[in-house]
């Protein structure tokens, strides 16, 4: 029995039990992670999981059931159970809904991969991490950490509308971190970002990160930060590095344009959105420099795929064009409720989880300047980079972000290093104050976006470049 056979059996069983629509997704995933700490490999884990998740629609109500068995009997039982659960949902019904219409599709897709990351020798991987932590320790880090993760995922999707899609997505990446511990506080520097960098690529991505070239620098910077002057408090011109811009995009644009949040489906947990669908196409989100795209077709970026977990083919779409809000992240069910005609942004973090609206690659298109040009054009300001803390309200408006490192800017030159830099603002006001944007874009990949109940961890990509903002409040402290 093939995985397509199991999915087909589950869908048929759901229909036989009374569902008017059903889909099933078989997933098989292998995961490997290793971490090193202070010169020793601390943890090496390898996992495998496989199972089938079935979604059924009865009337306007959904049910979902998942099991780790892929036999014909288990698949059929899961399909029937999903329909039973949907029937229970119908006892507290909502408005009539369904799915935006699409044609059934057949297709296969695989992510690019030059070096199979699971085939690289564990000793080589361990040596890479150990060497980086030893270098950091030798250069002032009290705590030196390095890690990588690899996911190799195969999926088979079948729907009652005729979808039959299989995909293989290989993802990997990693990062290094140096922590210096002082009398009253700790300081940390990370490379290339606070949570590492990941993509839908093979081990070539980790090789290109070149931990050896950056380990000494970040350890020395962490040590220097312990005695650097505090970031001043006040209002100033702020330049953000590309890594922090990726987080800024993720939190204050990506989550805000998720249609399930806009519709109130995440109200009790993840929150809603300040965006009102009635303003789609007209709302001024940011300055005219602001062009944000939703693009799962970017080769090698972490939010890339061939088809989403409803079988919708990957396609690029505008979210913000010249500062105006023009698009959302949607699934077929949320799009139907909202009266939209597109979907394609639904994913689940495993076979046992319901697909939900998820960021793909939500990125800011680059501008005309360089970071050095932006610094040179700034008379008085602060440059901050690499996220340290992130917090934003449940409508995605009021944010306060901390960065690992800052530098003062005086008369067009980068000056002293600053510790504990923070900035705060309101999303649309902040984005409207963006007056310079760099051309130096990079497709940052973050593998740890939490959302949904039961909780799911999403893999998202964020092309981002350094940018400058005016009149920003910085230096908030406890």
């Amino acid at each position: 029995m093939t995985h397509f056979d199991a999915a087909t059996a589950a869908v048929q069983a759901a229909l036989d039990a009374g569902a008017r629509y059903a889909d099933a997704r078989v997933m098989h995933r292998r995961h490997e992670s290793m971490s090193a700490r202070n010169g020793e490999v601390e943890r090496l884990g390898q996992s495998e999981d496989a199972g089938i998740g079935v979604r059924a629609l009865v009337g306007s109500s959904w049910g979902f059931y998942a099991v780790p068995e892929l036999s014909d009997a288990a698949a059929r039982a899961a399909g029937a159970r999903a329909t039973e659960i949907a029937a229970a949902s119908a006892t507290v019904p909502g408005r009539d809904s369904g799915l935006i219409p699409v044609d059934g599709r057949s297709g296969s897709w695989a992510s690019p991969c030059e070096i199979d990351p699971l085939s690289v020798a564990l000793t080589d991987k361990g040596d890479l991490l150990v060497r980086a932590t030893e270098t950091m320790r030798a250069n002032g880090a009290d705590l030196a950490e390095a890690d990588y993760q690899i996911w190799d995922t195969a999926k088979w999707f079948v729907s009652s509308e005729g979808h039959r899609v299989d995909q293989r997505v290989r993802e990997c990446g990693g990062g290094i971190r140096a922590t210096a511990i002082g009398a009253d506080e700790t300081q940390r520097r990370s490379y290339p970002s606070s949570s590492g960098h990941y993509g839908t690529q093979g081990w070539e991505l980790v090789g290109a990160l070149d931990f050896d070239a950056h380990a000494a620098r970040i350890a020395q910077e962490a040590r220097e930060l312990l005695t650097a002057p505090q970031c001043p408090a006040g209002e100033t011109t702020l330049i953000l590095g590309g890594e922090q811009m990726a987080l800024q995009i993720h939190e204050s644009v990506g989550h805000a344009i998720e249609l399930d949040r806009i519709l109130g489906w995440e109200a009790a947990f993840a929150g809603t959105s300040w965006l009102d669908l009635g303003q789609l196409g007209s709302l001024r989100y940011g300055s005219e420099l602001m062009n944000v795209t939703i693009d799962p077709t970017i080769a090698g970026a972490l939010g890339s795929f061939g088809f989403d977990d409803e079988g919708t083919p990957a396609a690029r779409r505008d979210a913000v064009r010249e500062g105006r809000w023009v698009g959302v992240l949607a699934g077929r069910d949320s799009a139907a409720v909202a009266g939209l005609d597109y979907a394609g942004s639904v994913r689940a973090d495993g076979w046992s989880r319901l697909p939900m609206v998820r960021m793909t690659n939500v990125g800011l298109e680059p501008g005309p300047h360089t970071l050095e040009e932006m610094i040179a054009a700034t008379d008085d300001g602060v440059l901050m980079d690499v996220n340290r803390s992130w917090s934003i309200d449940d409508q995605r408006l009021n944010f306060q972000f901390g960065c690992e490192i800052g530098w003062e800017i005086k008369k067009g030159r980068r000056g002293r290093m600053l510790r504990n830099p923070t900035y705060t603002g309101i999303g649309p006001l902040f984005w409207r104050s963006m007056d310079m944007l760099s051309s130096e874009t990079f497709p940052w990949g973050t593998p740890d976006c939490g959302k949904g109940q039961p909780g799911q961890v999403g893999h998202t990509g964020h092309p981002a470049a350094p940018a400058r903002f005016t009149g920003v409040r910085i230096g908030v402290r406890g």
Partner: protein
Amino acid sequence: MSADFTGGAEQDLAARTVELVRRAAGPAAQAEVFTDRVAQALTRFANSAIHQNVADTTVTVRLRLHLDGRTVTGSTTVVDEAGLRGLVDRVIAAVRVCPPDPGWPGLTPPAPITAPGRWDEATADASADDRAARVRAFVDAAGGLETAGYCRTRNWSAAFVNSAGQAVTGRTVATAMDGVARGGGADGVARLASGRLADIDGAVLGARAAAKARAGVDPVELPPDRYEVVLEPTAVADVLHNLALWGFNGRMVGERRSFAEPGKPQFDPAITLVDDAAGGLGLPFDFEGTPRTALTLVDAGRTTAVTHDRRTAAGAGTTSTGHAPPADNPWGPAPSNLGLVPAPGPGSAPAEVSGPAVDADTADLVSRVERGLLITDFWYTRVLDPRSLVMTGLTRNGVWLIEDGAVVGPVRNLRFTQSYPQALAPGAVLGLGRRATLLPDSWNPSTWSAPAVRLASWNFTGGASG
């Protein structure tokens, strides 16, 4: 469904896996296997209708193998004979080529558990209809306000077997409901965890959430400042969560990244903190097979202990406290069922009262405040510095101004930047409620038990305008 959750099948799987390792790697191999079966079902509602209704059952086998000075962990949900053999083969192949592990603390020796875990047959057998009925009651009790939230049940049985002779089984069942009512731009929340679905009354929770929402309409904006506060149990749960993760975590302590210093009076004498997985809704042993018992971390303001797994315990020259997380969890051994012991008093549930304080226990604390804020919930709290545990975050689901012992009106959400240990420092705790509420974690099976708390000062650093 509950007939599958005796732990017997999990013990058989674990024992078979250990035997497979012994045959393949020889008697020198040190192997430990944690096997569990988790069935969770969650009915989620929004816009006053069920919009998501999910269930899954997963059996996982986790193997940790130490051989020739090297350690590897592996896991699988493919638990037929071929799946188990594949897991063992992969882990053995990996352990022969992975780097050395000089910090290996050895296997847990044989030790009995003191209790098998909490179990309620009716909850374990709950159906989608049972959860839907509670959702219906919540929606109806909100009286026309828009509602959103979930009702969930979780059956968890597990076994641990290692090659040193430790073999234990346990099980637990947990349920929770968490919902908001929304109207006039205001949200109110009610949430509760329990070992029995019968304790979850959707109507009571819906009425509480609605009372808060109605009392939260037309809030005013207050200037950022330090305010005296009454934190409801829902907000205190966030404080406990972060104290647990960053403060009493033996790994953080060993690396000098935590404020916690056993032996020192770091908190107000009113504060006693106890972590109790076995007495709560956790399993009676950890992922290394160490039995769990209640552990007092703070006794009348004095830090008395931190939590350890075998590795951090070895580093600290002590023994494991039974807080080992899954081997692939990088956070270290943190409390996961932390409770703030309430003030002495009647153990029965306080009476429901009208208005945003919703229960007599919280209303009593409010009545003693000259000027301050009643806080329902914290949201998106993040660490600015782990050593001082300075956090930033926002209020959510209701803030009210208190003057002369009475709630005088709603306030818009505020951002804070506050050291949690400092907020609970000697002299800072002005009162505790007399009954703790058991609250679910939003992300994992942890639970937090807390009464309402009155604190002298909380540092708000921004309002809704930024």
